[in-house]
């Protein structure tokens, strides 16, 4: 066994991890030991090149780029998809090291749980969240949780009927913590500097725009090499032309977005606020709100004090990954503490990992070295 386990901190982390694991096992989450080595491309595709510097990279016998697992969710999903259980309901827990190049010693102990294939999504959300919070509480001081809901945000974007270009920018901007103002007014930088083309596009439909782009390329003698089709380039000109002509997002829609993103606080009170807001702005959020309230009910029923958690409508994470409930929890005694546990619902991931259809999934991970009270 690794010698560092003998140090007091590591020892405390290990026993906290084992207690957490027991808790997950008792709830029916079978322990899984996924592989350590994985194709690096999977993690880079999912999280972007920005994490490359944090991966321990190596190469396989035939030259493919591999890495040591930097986290557990994708390895657990891959093990599940490769198993006979793939596509069925299965619930897993894990305990062990994840490997990160920027962490001292290169590894960090993690425990967590993943729930796959359950149709009662809100109950599964609540169970995973509650088990993780309980495991955190067992280990020391109680953690303060922050909740969010990507499905609510998507619901707002959908019922505002915003053009796709704005939905994309809003998803990204909000996930990066930008203010609405910065997202909606940051457009100057990317509006194209070809006013003539844009003016011609303003009155064009897709076919016309595409023909124009093709003509432009032909006149310039440029072969359309390079991944994007004339049709895609035309679409972007159309988007830009639409952005150029007039207010990108109508004032009342902007107000509704503003009001939505400002909602925060006690999850139950937030639900009531969101209902009022949806009524006022005539947004159809019923499905997402029903799910939100159902989940809050399940969480409270599990004995987690939901009123102590803080919901924030603007708390969303990478939309490519999380599709619904998201959460994280930190030690309230430490200002700006990094989250000890985090997780959420990621219904789109399995398909991207090669599953035939969507498989519902929700999970949580606990960074054992960040647990409060593990020292002394």
């Amino acid at each position, binding site marked *: 066994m690794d010698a560092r386990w003998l140090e007091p901190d590591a020892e405390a982390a290990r026993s906290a991890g084992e207690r957490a694991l027991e808790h997950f096992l008792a709830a029916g989450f079978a322990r899984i030991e996924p592989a350590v080595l994985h194709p690096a*491309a999977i993690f*880079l*595709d999912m999280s*972007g*090149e*920005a994490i*490359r*510097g944090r991966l321990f990279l190596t190469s396989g016998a035939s030259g493919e780029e591999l890495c040591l697992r930097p986290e557990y969710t994708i390895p657990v999903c891959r093990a599940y998809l490769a198993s006979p259980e793939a596509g069925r309901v299965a619930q897993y827990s894990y305990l062990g090291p994840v490997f990160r190049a920027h962490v001292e010693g290169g590894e960090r102990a993690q425990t967590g749980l993943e729930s796959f294939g359950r149709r009662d999504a809100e109950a599964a959300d609540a169970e995973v969240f509650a088990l993780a919070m309980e495991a955190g509480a067992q280990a020391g001081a109680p953690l303060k949780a922050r909740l969010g809901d990507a499905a609510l945000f998507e619901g707002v974007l959908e019922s505002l009927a915003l053009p*796709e*270009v704005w939905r*994309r920018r809003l998803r*990204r901007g909000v996930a*990066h913590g930008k203010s609405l103002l910065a997202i909606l007014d940051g457009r100057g*930088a*990317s509006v*194209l*500097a*070809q006013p003539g083309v844009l003016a011609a596009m303003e009155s064009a439909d897709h076919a016309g725009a595409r023909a124009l*782009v093709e003509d*432009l*390329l032909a006149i*310039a003698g*440029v*072969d*359309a*090499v*390079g*991944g*994007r089709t*004339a049709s*895609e*380039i035309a679409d*972007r*000109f159309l988007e*830009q032309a639409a952005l150029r002509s007039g207010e990108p997002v109508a004032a009342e829609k902007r107000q509704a977005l503003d009001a939505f993103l400002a909602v925060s606080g006690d999850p139950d009170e937030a639900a009531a606020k969101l209902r009022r807001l949806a009524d006022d702005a005539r947004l159809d959020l019923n499905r997402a709100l029903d799910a939100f309230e159902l989940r809050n009910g399940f969480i409270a029923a599990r004995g987690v004090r939901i009123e102590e958690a803080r919901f924030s409508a603007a708390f969303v994470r990478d939309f*490519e990954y999380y599709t619904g409930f998201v959460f994280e929890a930190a030690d309230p005694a430490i200002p700006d503490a990094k989250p000890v546990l985090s997780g959420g619902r990621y219904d789109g991931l399995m398909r*991207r990992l090669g599953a035939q259809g969507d498989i519902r999934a929700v999970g949580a991970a606990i960074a054992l070295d960040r647990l409060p009270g593990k020292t002394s």
Partner: protein
Amino acid sequence: MTPAAFNEPPFVLAAPSKGRLQESAAAFFARAGLEFVQGRGARDYRGALNGLPGVEIAFLSASEIVGQLVAGAAHFGVIGEDQVREKTPDADMRLELLAPLGFGHCNVVVAAPRAWIDVRTMSDLEDVASAFRARRGERMRVATKYVNLTRRFFAEHSVADYRIVESLGATEGAPAAGAAELIVDITTTGATLAANALKTLDDGVILRSQATLVASLAAPWGPAALKNARAILDRIAASEKARKSREVRARLNGDARKLTERARALFDAAPATGDAPDPQGYVALHCARDKAADLASWLLAEGAERVSVAALEQVFDARNPLYEALEKRIGPA
């Protein structure tokens, strides 16, 4: 040889082992009166610096030069800044980039297909990359051998939706071959990019690179090594200064003190041998090459009968900013 020097490992100057960069480096040092002496034949990887017996030259490949400097196995190295920045993300912590050498110019740029007529800036690229990913579920691929430079630059421009495809040769062909959508590569004239139907983004210049004299902070800096460093830097500074300056001489009537001060203010000229002007009216001034003629005309107008302007071989100064920069990082001898 002093006992200290005897005990010290030799001063190692790492230089490119082949190609134009080696020729240019050799020419640069030769201009400073320091000739590369290669060992037996052109394939010998150790050499000496004519005139400085304590200095050994290690002829290495570009990536080895950076590695040896970081590890402290070489004191000085001649290497493109692009290599330094790519191979050592915290270059400024480990190395001192003493001086750009004026050759080996190239730009590391982001280039996209010319057919992307809607993409001119990095901000366009951010937008297009995110749409590409939303539409196809895959990230746009960037072919490059500058993995670290690309990552940092894209992060600065908040371009997140891309994947790097490492490319070790003929990167500019990757988009046409369907192996990537865009590239990050070096270009000198842009001709290769144009031949491959690629264009540089308007704000897509990641680095304007040139060959650079780099000092290792980890190398053993004993008294002899410092002495050699000073000798090399003095000669480089002396020949560089000489190359960029002209000496302008004249005799005027009366005290030259006032005139010297005015020449300094007007032409950034300095007395050739320090700051004591000649009461007899003789002035010898150093000024930038392109100001020499103006200074000469001005001296004529001030009453000189004849002004001579001469090229210089070397100009040594008691203060050497290059050496001072090095000393600041590694401490005095």
